[in-house]
């Protein structure tokens, strides 16, 4: 059975300018211990869909207007506020792009990790301290006995993100949601962090949802991936399959537009034309249609639903690509 099943999730934001359909009918599954990559550009709804799982959408202006989210068989959208609080951090943990905003600047990191332990795992002070030291060592923070009493600002960006990972994993969650965890750090640090996450979660059997705009990050670290555009999943499948045989013109375009170090240098990049979609004024039919070079008549009229195009590989596109 799947650990997490998201069915037809819809999260809208009601703004002065109109209704922003940030997530508009998204469905996906995540098995235990699996790593799913959720890829897309800013504003495609990837973060909102993840925040919706923990019901962390600020209301107003946001609202989850439809769908179901089953976690270990329970619909997270139906349970009480108290129950969801118990799920947060304890069963589903989250790490964010900017660790500084999710750490309290006036508390030592020891206290902050300890809080979760005392809250969810009923440890006493001494046990908690031992556990904190173990966690800090685990995520590779040197000299944890000394650093346990340090404040967040005394850590570098990469080290803060390690603290966040330690905090997230402190309660042995079943699922770790990592929202652009390496976007704010440099490439060399990014490589370190992703290795830490990969190593620890595979050891602890934690399922991971890795949200990113970086196609390279996904390639190395996920089993399956879903590509989002304008609030919907437009392609999903096993990572190797999607990279080798991308089907949706958007995925094809994204992969073709980034220069690659392992390939000979191209004289010219092939960009995707046009501008990112305006979520308030989406065209009828396929949202990608205005930028698509394969568009047909039907694309402007009817919205394509996900359909199978290979083993576990789905796409929401009317076109029949030549393989």
């Amino acid at each position, binding site marked *: 059975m799947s650990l997490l099943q998201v069915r037809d999730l819809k999260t809208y934001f009601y703004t002065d300018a109109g209704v922003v359909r940030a997530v508009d009918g998204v469905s996906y599954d995540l098995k235990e211990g699996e790593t799913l990559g959720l890829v897309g550009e800013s504003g495609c709804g990837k973060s909102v869909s993840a925040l919706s799982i923990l019901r962390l959408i600020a209301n107003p202006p946001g609202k989850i207007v439809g769908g179901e989210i089953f976690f270990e068989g329970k619909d997270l959208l139906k349970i009480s506020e108290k129950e969801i609080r118990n799920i947060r951090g304890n069963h589903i943990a989250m790490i964010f792009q900017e660790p500084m905003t999710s750490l309290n600047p006036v508390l030592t990191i020891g206290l902050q990790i300890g809080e979760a332990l005392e809250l969810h795992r009923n440890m006493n002070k001494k046990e908690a301290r031992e556990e904190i030291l173990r966690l800090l060592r685990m995520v590779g923070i040197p000299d944890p006995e000394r650093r346990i009493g340090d404040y967040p600002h005394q850590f570098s960006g990469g080290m803060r993100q390690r603290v966040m990972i330690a905090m997230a994993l402190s309660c042995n969650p079943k699922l770790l949601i990592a929202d652009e965890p390496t976007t704010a750090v440099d490439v*060399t640090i990014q490589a*370190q962090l992703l290795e830490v996450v990969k190593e620890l979660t595979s050891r602890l059997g934690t399922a991971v949802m890795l949200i990113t705009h970086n196609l390279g990050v996904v390639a190395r670290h996920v089993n399956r991936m879903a590509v989002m555009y304008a609030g919907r999943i437009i392609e999903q499948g096993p990572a190797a399959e999607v990279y080798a045989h991308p089907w949706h013109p958007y995925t094809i375009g994204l992969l073709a537009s980034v220069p690659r170090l392992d390939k000979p240098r191209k004289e010219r990049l092939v960009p995707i034309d046009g501008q990112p979609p305006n979520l308030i004024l989406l065209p009828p039919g396929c949202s990608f249609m205005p930028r698509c070079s394969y568009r047909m008549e039907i694309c402007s009229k009817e919205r394509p639903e996900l359909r199978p195009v290979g083993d576990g590989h789905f796409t929401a596109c009317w076109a029949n690509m030549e393989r």
Partner: protein
Amino acid sequence: MANDILIEIKNLSMYFPITKGIIRQQKIAEVKAVDGVNFFIRKGETLGLVGESGCGKTTLGRCLLQLIRPTSGEVYFEGVDLCTMASDHLRSIRQRMQIIFQDPFDSLDPRMTAGEIVAEPLRVHTRIRGRELREKIAELLKIVGLDPSMTERYPHQFSGGQRQRLGIARALAIRPSFIVCDEPISALDVSIQAQIINLLEDLQGEFDLTYLFIAHDLSVVRHISHRVAVMYLGKIVEVANRDALYRVAKHPYTIALLSAVPIPDPIVEASRERIILRGEIPSPIALPPGCNFHPRCPIGVEICQKEIPSLREIEEGHWVACHLA
């Protein structure tokens, strides 16, 4: 040196003092953001400048344009040293050198229309006004791929990519010969980045521009640059022609950087060996003795902890600052 050189910087340093007290300021430390940098840029070429955040690449770009006056060193633009030039004089030089900023949201005045933004350099440096100015604005917008009917719009009515095009139009307005591109695509969506890269390349050909292209993305830098300089903690550690650098990087830092770049292909990634560097970038306030990179270097030896390596030319056009290269 050959006269096809547009810009040459010699021993350029920028130290930011950390002070205490307000009236009688006492210097308690220095941040060596740029520390004795030498390089040159030829006419019509793109020099890529890569490095991680805090390595001083942005400060170096600002010093080059004299937006920050460097602590010491020389910046020759067409043979004239800008560092000793008076501010008034510099203002007219600014017509020849421009900058494109990283953040297309922050670099455009939100209270000015697209037309006013693009017109500003023309108002400052030329006497073009009225109808001629409007025609010029329309032409500039067209050059960067924007519809001239957008002249009256405000920045927040544009998307990120369009805003960056506006920033480029502004830089281009007074026909500079040199442009510092300070991470011009890192704030943009992936699907838009290639558009802007192609535009920059087209403009270079059309207007005979010379670029200093500052970035942290090594794959983009390889695509756009003719030569590449790698910076670490205020110093240039390696400079070479693009192909030489990406084929046979000599400095261990460059090699590690290249190996850390993720490649969007699971099959390639699975067989790839990564060099994961130990530790983090040291604080530029308390630099390690010897080579700046030695605390993280996978191949460091004893001499690295004592002596600062100088930038040596080990092959024609390939300079490296490493004792072991």
